[in-house]
């Protein structure tokens, strides 16, 4: 193998993995505060389409980025209102968000499907994604607010008794996660593709969700996991190209199988589970009981 080919492959892995890092790190923070958001796929699609449409209409990258972010704030804000204020079931609400997002993005983007645009260089986002993981890692382990997020996610009743504002903390983490998913979508439609197509995130939201568990809720492991998942996907294409007989589907299902194995590993031991998963994940917080 020559150096150029290896660099070429690494380049593709970098470019294709970045959306997983964005969506994954956002969801990690959300889950750290005890909320499971299954709406990633929907958030990504709406983030992708709103950025794309704005870019086509205005030709301005800043506005398109802004609108993509706003879409994430609005949608995840609705999710937050439902699960935090109305105490709805997080699973059902997240699924509703995904289904809604798939539909909404397809409707909005219909007229813009196939419109050519001048894409943005992916490298800014790649650099930002690394910085993001670093800062989230620092935030969660070294800052007071980060510890507060974790306290809320571990035991919201104790956190509340200590005087932390559980609802406000979770609002912020949910919206942070939503915006990160939107950015992941924005990256896909503006930098990676660059174009709009119905359902173009192709299940990356679910992989990002798997990734958070695979990383056992640790930012730096999430980064490594993302590159393993991304690398496997690219490797599969290249192995097929050089004629390896293993069917590609088995590579494609690896992230999911690996996640299940990690899940079983951490949950089979109570202590290990305690050290990894946020204890209040998917438990509704009812203040007035």
């Amino acid at each position, binding site marked *: 193998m020559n150096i150029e080919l290896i660099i070429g492959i690494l380049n593709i892995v970098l470019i294709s993995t970045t959306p997983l890092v964005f969506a994954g790190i956002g969801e990690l923070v959300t889950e750290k505060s005890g909320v499971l958001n299954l709406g990633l796929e929907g958030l990504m699609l709406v983030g992708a389409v709103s950025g794309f449409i704005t870019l086509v209409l205005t030709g301005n990258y800043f506005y398109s980025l802004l609108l993509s972010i706003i879409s994430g704030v609005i949608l995840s804000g609705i999710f937050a209102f439902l699960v935090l204020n109305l105490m709805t079931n997080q699973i059902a609400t997240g*699924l509703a968000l995904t289904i809604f997002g798939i*539909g909404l993005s397809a409707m909005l983007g219909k007229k813009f499907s196939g419109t050519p645009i001048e894409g943005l260089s992916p490298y800014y986002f790649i650099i930002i994604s690394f910085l993001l993981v670093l800062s989230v890692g620092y935030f969660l382990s070294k800052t007071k607010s980060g510890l507060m997020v974790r306290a809320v996610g571990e035991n919201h009743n104790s956190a509340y008794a200590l005087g932390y504002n559980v609802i406000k903390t979770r609002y912020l983490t949910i919206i942070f996660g939503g915006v990160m998913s939107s950015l992941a979508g924005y990256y896909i439609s503006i930098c990676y593709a660059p174009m709009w197509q119905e359902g173009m995130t192709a299940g990356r939201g679910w992989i990002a969700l798997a990734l958070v568990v695979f990383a056992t809720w640790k930012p730096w492991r999430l980064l490594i996991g993302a590159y393993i998942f991304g690398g496997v996907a690219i490797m599969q294409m290249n192995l097929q190209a050089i004629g390896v007989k293993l069917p590609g*589907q088995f590579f494609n299902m690896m992230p999911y*199988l690996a*996640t299940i194995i990690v899940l079983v590993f951490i*949950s089979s031991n109570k202590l290990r589970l305690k050290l990894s998963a946020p204890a209040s994940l998917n438990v509704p917080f009812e203040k007035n009981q």
Partner: protein
Amino acid sequence: MVYLIRVQLREDYSNFIFYLSPLVAVALTLFFGSFIFLILDLSPIESFKIFFISPISNSYGISELFVKATPLAIIALGLSYCFKNNIYNIGAEGQLTMGAIFGGGIGLLFNDSTSVFLLPLMILFGAIGGAFWATIPAILKTKFNTNEILTSLMLTYVALFILDYFVVGPWKDPEGYGLPKSMPFPEAGRLPVLFDGLRVHIGVYFALIICFITYIVYNKTLFGFKLKVSGLSSKASQYAGFKYKNLIFYTFVISGACAGLAGLFEVSGPIGLLYRDISPNYGFTAIIVAFLGRLNPIGIILSSLLIALTYLGAEDAQLFLKIPSAVGFVFQGLVLFFLLGTDFLNKYRVLIK
């Protein structure tokens, strides 16, 4: 001026409102849906007519309504066992796919058969396939305490890739022009239709039978009572001596078998062969159906018809209004949002001081 908003658990929790709230949610969805049509520069009344009335204005349309409602109802009825028990199996899409692979595999294995036993065997294997796929998260949950939400979801994607492997690999139709699909099932492996020329099939009877059995189980049997108790409090159920782990296992197997059955009905009914996209998200949409039907067997039948209509309406909207059929998903998402929201007002009293 500062308002202090507090919420309080209602003591006068009303069963009537509990069953009324799906209707409120549907009304709110239609109200907000009309804005979506307005934004798209379409007349809401005309659009609703195309969306909700014209699809079922002839016998073909009504048959199609049942074709779509059958898998939704069967899956949602199965899921209601899990949800009643507070167990979140969200992998019905994968269990459906496994049912199609198992049952459809039997159809392809005996593809020259004319035996009357072929179809029953396929149906049996469909249910086994779905149940098998559901036992994986069930065993992981009961033996290792692994979160069933995540495992059942992950397994969905694994199942979809397994199906993909079969239809582009060993089961690919040699005369299929290289398309990723299997050979058609033999005539003996096709689900009989109820009326000539229409696609509605005997799966409808299965849905009704499962609905009836479920009604009996929930209202007349100890098993149904155990589900209710452990759904309300798993601790109380263990204290009462119910084997909670067994309950988890059985509910998973039942819901998996139902999803597998629905998958087999899809491939041996309307589709007639195996290919990549056998299900337009039925497994996920059935979760909405189950919630909208309030986990009540009769409610689920009604809500499956309503959600089936969003599928049909979306297809018509694509044809006549030139908007993507994904608009159906918008309505499905909205109706679930509103349902979950209205439940809050039934459970809690909002005090503004």
